[in-house]
């Protein structure tokens, strides 16, 4: 099958949906002629014109609110926040308004909004351009949170997100933009709330998100040579969470390692650990639930420090090996 990049998958999903549904439009900073900071929307201005590619000045709160208002009357906006770090400026409209309008109005409205934003470190852009806040939005009823790890998942999940009648925070990872994978040319949906077992295994379960899925799969290959058979579960959607798939995997393997890039403390890994520890899987656990996540620091500039601040393949191997050998 045809291979395209993760970035191209984002663009293709948006383009095909815009061709299909005139209510879909883009709004964000430098998404027009500039093509977006990461060139995600490059070429779309020529195709759809300024009427549907809304380039804004630097107004994260304003543009997020504008997208929310448009959604409130039936449009289907896709807002881009250039870096997830800047969702700190947009969160009032996203969290207090978009997420709550339907409930607050007793069900009178829907808010079919997609807020796309790239997260993660590894680009040398330092403290203000490298953060991962997914768990902030997982904590907000009314929002859905999607975090794809492959080009195939990007296209199917983004199409589903655009068609969903609720506000969806769609989190992309910068270092995945250039990764390639097989992606059908036709449109397809991947249901929000379904996890994907990226690798079957029997000895232990790794639950990973975004780029950590890729790294965990690499780690799993190497561990296989040591005779450690790792199952890699990618939730893909963080809210709603596919608890069943996670619980089943843990029941099967009896051991679980949670891996994400965001800072460990207060992160989504806590939610995953708690979901497992309060579930029937608890009785099947043969070892403590381990987390491997971002260190307790802002993302530093220096290359070595930057990569030491988040889990790398080698760290996953070490931690998974330790877990595999644990006996309680």
């Amino acid at each position, binding site marked *: 099958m045809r291979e395209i990049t993760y970035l191209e998958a984002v663009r293709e999903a948006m383009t095909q949906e815009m061709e299909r549904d005139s209510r879909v439009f883009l709004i964000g900073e430098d998404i027009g002629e500039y093509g977006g900071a990461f060139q995600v929307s490059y070429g779309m201005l020529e195709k759809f014109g300024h009427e549907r590619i809304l380039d804004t000045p630097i107004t994260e709160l304003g543009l997020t*609110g504008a997208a929310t208002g448009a959604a409130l009357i039936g*449009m289907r906006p896709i807002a881009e926040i250039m870096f997830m770090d800047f969702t700190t400026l947009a969160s009032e409209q996203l969290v207090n308004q978009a997420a709550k309008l339907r409930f607050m109005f007793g069900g*009178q409205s829907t808010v079919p909004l997609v807020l796309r934003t790239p997260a993660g470190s590894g680009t040398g852009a330092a403290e203000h351009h490298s953060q991962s806040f997914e768990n902030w939005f997982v904590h907000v009823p009314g929002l859905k949170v999607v975090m794809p790890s492959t080009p195939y998942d990007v296209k199917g999940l983004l199409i589903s997100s655009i068609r969903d009648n609720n506000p969806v925070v769609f989190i992309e990872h910068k270092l995945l933009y250039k990764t390639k994978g097989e992606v059908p040319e036709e449109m397809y949906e991947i249901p929000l709330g379904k996890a994907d077992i990226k690798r079957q295994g029997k000895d232990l379960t790794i639950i990973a998100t975004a780029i950590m899925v890729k790294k965990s799969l690499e780690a799993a290959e190497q561990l296989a040579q040591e005779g450690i058979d790792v199952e890699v579960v990618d939730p893909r959607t963080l809210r709603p969470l596919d608890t069943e798939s996670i619980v089943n995997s843990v029941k099967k393997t009896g051991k679980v390692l949670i891996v994400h890039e965001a800072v460990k403390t207060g992160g989504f890994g806590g939610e995953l650990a708690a979901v497992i520890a309060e579930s029937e899987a608890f009785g099947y656990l043969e070892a403590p639930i381990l987390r491997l996540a971002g260190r307790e620091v802002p993302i530093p500039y220096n290359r070595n420090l930057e990569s030491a601040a988040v889990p790398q393949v080698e760290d996953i191997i070490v931690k998974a090996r330790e877990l595999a050998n644990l006996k309680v």
Partner: protein
Amino acid sequence: MTLTKEQAAEYLLQMYQIRAFEEQAEKSYMAGKIHGTMHLSIGQEASAVGSISTLEPDDFIIGHHRGHGLTIAKGADLNLMMAEFYGKENGYCRGRGGSMHIADVKGGNLGANGVVGGGIPMAVGIGIGLKMEAKDQVLLSFFGDGAASTGAFHESMILAELFQVPVVFICENNQYAMSFAASDWTTSKKIAAHGELYGLASTSTDGNDLIAVREAVQKGVDLARSGGGPSLVVNDTYRWRGHSKSDRNRYRTKEEIEEWKKKDPIGRFHDYCLKEKLLTEKEAEEIEDRAYADIEAARVFAEASPDPSVDTLEEGVYAP
């Protein structure tokens, strides 16, 4: 822009209904029938009714926390509105929103808002949507003088002008943001001046004069409907009551309040209607009586209405 007898009667009725609703809201609260807080708009009736009187039924408004008057002026069903205020299941928002979040989406009222400035960015997007769909509807976006100090206001004005949205932004300048005097950092004239700089046609009006408000807002509505883009109207007015139930009125004097009460927007419109022979003394009295009767009926309806069942708590968070 002279009024017909029917219009005069309708606007006076709405102003009395607002006054009566707010007085009832206060009574119900004092009687312990309401929990939470509320923001009363007594004294601001002309701004609400005058502004919204310029709209067609299928036009939109989006409001703020002090939104009871706007809701009534947009033609809300008083029973459903009072039921919402009481937090009842048959209220507009099934009792989920209450005073600060009343919305009547079918009626074109896209809701009050608990966040100061929270409605302004959404107003821009509603305008973007109306423009894209080439609807000839327009939106009135209401906010207070305090909201004009928020970053949300600044960013929204820039975006509104950039995208030439069919929106009239209406600043109800009641002189205070809680205890913070508008005059301490700006004046209504200055808010209009900011509007001009952003590129919006901007004016300020005597917000207690229904006719003046109506004329100013009508210009903005005509501009928006004819593709002329956004505008800003600042209605100078005053809230007679405290900011909310936590207010002890330490920041203003009784004299100031009394001065403004002399400019009662209802009294002024009442006298205008009589002077212009649009209404007789007797008709005006009947209108006032009817308004209070409507609100009393709404109270009875609301108090007789059922609370939401706790089993339904998780309904309506997500749309199918």
